[in-house]
């Protein structure tokens, strides 16, 4: 049996206490002191045990980082001296989109390499914005591909980055009548991308490259940041270049498999001269999804050029750039995907989406919306314990000392995260009855959308909806 693709994970303990969700409030003055029943001794999760340890070393106030919220200490304390509060620091990390919950779960996955599992039901709002306004679908009985936890290893998560021929043509003797370019593929629909802020020390970059290298994916990074000592990672690197300056990096371009050039009008000439530097190079064009651009149209134009992949960028929260009322990446991708189908070029070109991909489920959902794969940036640094506190933007020190991270450790964390993500992708593909992630692309039939469900199920009962649906 051929070796199947797996991502080997290995637990990597956090270097710093993760920002926990809860803090206890405890007025010791009312404490019975040496109470035999002390809930601190009896905590099922042994939280207080550790807490005493940092109490005596104490560099920071006593938060119960690992409180699992069972309320027993609060309900069983003989004097009722406990109360609880959401850790104020927890409230402050991340933002609206990269919520503390997202960060926490990412940390968990990077730590353990396992997928987040919990009991009880779903805890969130009925429906949310963006990705939270769609559900993926599964089928009940009659889909033989779905074997639960068994057989999942047969699901293929490969995607291509190289252009696909429109159709094959054969000569009379059966040999190929067209030139088939070499195929460049990555074993999972996730590429890495250098974050546009945060600590960018060599250690951080090497951690990412090392992880990408290990799991066989690639990483977009600024050509200017590719120092000589990163060259060993050559095939893993996709340098980002610009029309005006790419010639400065011709040596680098010659040594990599793939390169990305930023979209500018009249990009075609640059593409031709790129090919002159390295004729086998796979070319991606990076396109910012700006409100003032007809990006769907541009993509159609690009798809007709001699390029392989279009990499569309939304902002970190998955929103359109330069707009007062920015659209969300899932809707933008739908447009692009459909425009390419109309132009009959969708099959030939690959679309990589980036921006706002913060959880594994987003990968599947954006693929359903029409992307081939995604590029992620922030999850990489979050895996390395970044708290998105933004201190580095102000030139302050990093609370988790990212600049000096050991690349072996850093890559371990990223690999764990990717292992967990891939497992979740498989989980969903399995539930949907798909054997290949490529079959998911544009497959809106495997999804349900809030607006559709409301219309189908509720409109016949409640009539016309008066509150407009705001899921963008």
């Amino acid at each position, binding site marked *: 049996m051929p070796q199947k693709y797996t991502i080997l994970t290995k637990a990597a303990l956090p270097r710093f206490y993760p920002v926990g969700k809860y803090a206890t409030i405890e007025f010791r003055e009312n404490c019975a002191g040496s109470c035999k029943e002390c809930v601190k001794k009896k905590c099922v999760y042994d939280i207080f045990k550790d807490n005493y340890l940092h109490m005596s070393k104490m560099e920071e106030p006593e938060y119960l980082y690992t409180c699992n919220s*069972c309320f027993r200490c609060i309900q069983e304390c*003989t004097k009722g001296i406990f109360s*609880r509060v959401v850790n104020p620091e927890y409230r402050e990390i991340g933002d609206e989109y990269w919520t503390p919950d997202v960060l926490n779960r990412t940390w968990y996955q990077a730590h353990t390499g396992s997928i987040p599992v919990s009991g009880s*039901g*779903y805890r969130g709002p009925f429906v949310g914005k963006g990705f939270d306004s769609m559900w993926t679908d599964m089928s009940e009985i009659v889909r033989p591909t779905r074997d639960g936890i068994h057989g999942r290893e047969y699901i293929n998560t490969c995607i291509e980055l190289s252009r696909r021929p429109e159709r094959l043509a054969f000569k009379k003797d059966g040999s190929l009548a067209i030139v088939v370019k070499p195929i460049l593929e990555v074993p999972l629909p996730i590429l890495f991308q250098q974050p546009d802020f945060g600590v960018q020390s060599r250690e951080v970059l090497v951690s990412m490259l090392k992880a990408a290298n290990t799991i066989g994916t690639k990483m977009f990074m600024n050509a200017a940041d590719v120092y000589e000592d990163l060259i060993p990672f050559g095939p893993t690197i996709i340098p980002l270049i610009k029309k005006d300056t790419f010639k400065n990096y011709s040596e680098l371009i010659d040594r990599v498999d793939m390169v990305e050039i930023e979209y500018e009008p009249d990009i075609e000439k640059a593409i031709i001269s790129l090919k002159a530097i390295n004729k086998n190079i796979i070319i991606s064009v990076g396109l910012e999804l700006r409100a003032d651009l007809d990006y769907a149209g541009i993509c159609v134009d690009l798809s007709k050029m001699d390029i392989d992949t279009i990499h569309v960028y939304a902002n970190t929260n998955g929103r359109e750039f330069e707009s007062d009322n920015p659209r969300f990446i899932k809707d933008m991708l739908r447009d692009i995907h459909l425009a390419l189908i109309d132009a009959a070029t969708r099959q030939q070109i690959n679309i990589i989406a980036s921006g706002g991909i913060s959880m594994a489920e987003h990968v599947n959902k954006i693929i359903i919306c029409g992307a081939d794969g995604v590029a992620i940036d922030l999850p990489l640094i979050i895996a390395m314990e970044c708290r998105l506190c933004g201190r580095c933007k102000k030139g302050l020190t990093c609370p988790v000392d990212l600049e000096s991270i050991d690349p072996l450790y850093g890559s371990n964390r990223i690999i764990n995260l990717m292992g967990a993500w891939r497992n979740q992708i498989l*989980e969903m593909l399995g539930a949907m009855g798909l054997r290949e992630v490529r079959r998911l692309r544009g497959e809106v039939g495997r999804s349900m959308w809030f607006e559709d469900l409301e219309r189908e199920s509720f409109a016949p009962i409640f009539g016309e909806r008066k509150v407009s649906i705001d899921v963008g």
Partner: protein
Amino acid sequence: MNQIKYQLPETRHTPSRFRNTIGKYIVKRNSNCISCGKCSEICPFGVHIKPDHHKSPFRPVEHNCIGFDCKNTDHYCIEHCPEDALTLKENPLLYTMGDYRWPPEMLLGHFAMAETGKAPHVDLEYNLGNSGGGFDMMRFIEPDPGVELTISDEEIDTSIDLNKTGDGRPLKTISIPCYGGGMSYGSTALSVIVGRARAAKRLNSLTCTGEGGYPPQFLPYKEHVITQVATGLFGVREETIQHCPIMEFKYAQGAKPGLGGHLLGEKVTKAVAKMRETVVGSSLFSPFPFHSVYSVEDHKKHVDWMKEINHSVLCSIKVSTPTDVDMVAIGAYYAGAHIIHIDGSYGGTGAAPDIAKKNIAMPIEYAIPKVHRFLVEEGVRDKVCLIASGGIRNALDVAKAIALGADGCVIGTADLVAVECVRCGNCESGRGCARGIATTDPELGCMIDEEYVEQRLVNMYMAWRKQWCDILRTHGLKSIKELRGRSDLLVHLDYLDEEERRKYQPAPRYKMVL
């Protein structure tokens, strides 16, 4: 309709298992207190207790406090305290409790109902969640004042029939429009599931084994225990099918549709392993599909097999809610199901990948009308009992689900909340449930006794029944069967004009830290 008086099971005060209860308000007594006992004299809710033979009052029983509304009464302890020793605050603990679907007040409300058997006297919003959609946006319309009936709760029929096919098998009737969802021996403490069975007997309803076998402790209540057959077939034996009134085929679970079950090795204790005929400590997977079922025909074979083993058993088919749930339902009916049980995606579970709970399949609110309508169109609606589950949290959710088209509901999470689950979600981490509910840990598993579970559940359902009776009465209905499919009695706030909407209680929508 004849005037039946229903024998209601007795409710009994069943206080919390825990020393400190959680209240919406906090009441503190400081050292100015001179133990005069004034507060305990005036408080009608038992917040302040000072037995005659005690020198000083007990710590305030905060969860009984009605809060600032008390100001307008003549028993507001804060003002009556001669020493200014009392303080009243909203309990900030509530900000750390619950979630969008089960906000803290709904949890506390259910605790109170399970304790007293009555609606809570504290101003808790226990009928509406904070999810901003689905049931939380639906309201029963303002009833026509003329239609209200003046009959007592006992005269209102809240029973539903489970067998409508007329196939000669028993017409199983349960006295409340819900029964207990599957919770397996192994995922949940034995005392909890046996307690549920005892409650089911008292309530004349049902509970379900889940996929964990049939502990002998169920036998005294066997008329009220459904045997579940799921893909792992754990613990399914001929005799368990022979003595059950209803057999449930589980094709999928709403919270993790498309995924199999997974019982962590740690939970597989000796007793669990014996029940499931497996090895101690090894993780147990239920595959997702039945490997013997690849078509509706295969499924029918399954059902026939079961009907053959037990000639009086009814058959329930539990499926989740994909887009084609309506087709699945009709297929199940034609394969011979008496009950079609659709399980929505927001329901509870012992353990599921977070990615599944949130993202796969549709919420039950959409699925009920979809299936109901399809069954009506196919002309078989009155031949089959449609049961909804997965995110049915309270009495009003049940009523709304029925009005949307279900016959009744299956309740899981609310049962656990009645025995003081706080939905912390750690059902399977470490030693299992810290509150002793979903655990087989030898120590934690002994935190609950059956009688407590039984009575708390009876209390909660009796409180729910009062709510159902109120709804039925105000809308001029005598039986909950008449409510089924009466979606005309429902409104959805998002489908109302601004002005119209103001007549109804607004939907709670506040931001929570999750």
